[in-house]
């Protein structure tokens, strides 16, 4: 079930990526539609982060090519924004929330130019959009995980891009924050922007995304979310794990085994 679209915003052709000779993404042909919210879904180690990095040109491709807005990434970089997994940076770095959001302006500023007053204003506005104005001057290590995630999001907004790649923006955020973020994404897609999100929760995927990509080292499905999120395709994606889990669950009910040790007491 792999839908290809006309005039895609992202096009991957025969993309293969390897770490130390071991391929972790195999021959992926993928096209993504513009002005939509796209979920990339798959188990841990499926290569979701790797896929984003490959699309952002952050790792070498073993084969294939990536085209964004029908061009090489280098030509359109200023229109693309990348939000790494939150754990990829050291939050003990001496910087305030505002400092981090200002980094979103660096691409537009170019090398060696200092952020101007206007950039600071944009950064503050982006912090406002994620409801973090009160924390602008706060040292980033003193923010909660969810607040750090919002700061990363604000940094992406500050890039004023047309296409956003976000690696697990919902990891470790509470339900209210998740709602706020998804609303923000919906506004963005209404403005014609495209958001590509790595996501783990199958339940909310239906509701959040217009388009879903199922991935497990290879591309399993790509298409409108209601056609992709089927039991059969999900089982194929999560492989033996999902069925094994189901079996274990059944065993628990059948034997009336407590699911927590505590219940013995």
């Amino acid at each position: 079930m792999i839908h290809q679209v006309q005039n895609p915003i992202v096009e991957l052709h025969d993309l293969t990526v390897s770490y130390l000779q071991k391929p972790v993404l195999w021959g992926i042909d993928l096209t993504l539609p513009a002005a939509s919210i796209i979920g990339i879904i798959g188990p841990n180690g499926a290569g979701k982060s790797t896929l984003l990095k490959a699309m952002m040109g952050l790792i070498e491709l073993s084969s294939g090519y990536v085209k964004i807005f029908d061009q090489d990434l280098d030509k359109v970089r200023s229109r693309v924004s990348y939000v790494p997994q939150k754990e990829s940076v050291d939050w003990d770095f001496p910087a305030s929330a505002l400092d981090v959001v200002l980094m979103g302006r660096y691409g537009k500023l170019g090398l060696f130019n200092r952020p101007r007053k206007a950039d600071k204003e944009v950064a503050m506005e982006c912090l406002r959009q994620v409801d973090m104005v009160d924390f602008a001057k706060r040292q980033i290590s003193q923010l909660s995980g969810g607040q750090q995630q919002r700061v990363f999001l604000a940094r992406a907004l500050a890039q004023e891009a047309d296409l956003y790649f976000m690696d697990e923006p919902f990891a470790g955020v509470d339900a209210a924050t998740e709602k706020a973020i998804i609303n923000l994404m919906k506004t963005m897609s209404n403005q014609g922007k495209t958001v590509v999100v790595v996501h783990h929760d199958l339940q909310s995927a239906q509701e959040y995304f217009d388009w879903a990509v199922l991935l497990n080292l290879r591309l399993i499905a790509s298409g409108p979310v209601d056609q992709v999120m089927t039991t059969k395709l999900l089982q194929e994606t999560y492989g033996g794990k999902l069925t094994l889990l189901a079996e274990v669950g059944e065993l628990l009910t059948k034997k009336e085994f407590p699911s927590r040790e505590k219940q013995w007491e």
Partner: protein
Amino acid sequence: MNIVDFISLSDPNVRFVVIGSMLLAASSAIVGCFTLLKKKALVGDAVAHSVLPGVCLAFLLSGVKNPVFLIIGAFITGWLSLVLIDFITARSKIKEDTAIGLILSVFFGIGILMLTVIQKSGNAAQSGLDHFLFGQAASLVGMDLIVFSAISLILIIAVVICYKELAIIAFDEGFAQSIGFPVRALELLLTTLTVLAVVTGIQAIGVVLMAAMLITPAAAARFWTSNLKVMILLAAALGALSGLIGAYISYLAPAMPTGPWIVMVISLIAILSFFLAPQKGILVRWFKQKNFQTQMLEENILKLFYQLGEINGNFYTPRTVEQIMERRPFQDFRLRKGLIKLKRQGYLESTSQGWAYTQAGKTKGQRITKLHRLWELYLTEYLRIAPDHVHEDAETIEHIITPELEKRLEEKLEYPRLDPHQSEIPYHK
């Protein structure tokens, strides 16, 4: 030379040595901030030790102690060591820290060997060369001074120009690459700056301890601030200060190497920072905690007077220490200390029959009691915690609730009359 002569810098020679030492210590501290934040502290150590064979080789080949040749030699082997570390890490199962240790000892060993050869050969010009092990600031004169100072200035200028770029590759390399910054080149730049920073210090501080000069000021500065710019300026200032003291000692005791002194000074500063710095320093944290404990004790005493007053219907009855202890077992000497302090603050007065509230004392005791009971009610009503579990929590929270929170709490609960234990909540009338 006495301290007055030194401080007045009347001797131009002294003046230049002092300025030179401060400048190079400051510049390596500035670069060291980024080395530290990029988690490359060990790499700095490897470079520092690896420049020794380069220095010796340059001397052996040229036969003269010319700073330019020596720096070129140092730069080459310093760089070579980094390339080898990267190569070993990438091409074998050996981890980076092991590779660093390996390269460091091999290069330094070769350097020492060469130094021994040079010393044995009895070349007159070598007299200054052994300073490269532990440094001698006073020998920083003439051509040496000019060259090392020039490099220091270049380092500082480079960091000023590339501040934003160095900061972003230290914080989030992936992001920097995603916005099209030349990450490889910037990393190369930082490595080059690190090597140069080490090279500037070889004469005044020496290769053995130069890594400490790179990292310690940055680490000390980090204790005081969470702002990168402030951290850099502070590191530079601390570095310069240790450079100054080192230069002085070098004059005072010419036979003594300077490096260990400078490093001792900066280490002392780092240790003091560890204890004294606000927020991060452990002494300050300790004081804060101590203060909070005292505040809790005092407020608990005032609260107790209020509860005793509720029992007999008169809040201003004097109470003896024994009566207080009967109701709540404080530590005896802490209680007495607290009572005396509360008297000094005007919340209690001591009479012949014991201690009694003043007007202000009663107001304060009543407020604490009110907060305690409000919080208990809040916990049971809003967080659905069982009434017999809320007391402990309220014991702490009552001391930190601000007047604004107090007002919100009252409004949210709509000025209730009784707490979960059916005690009356005393509002101020």
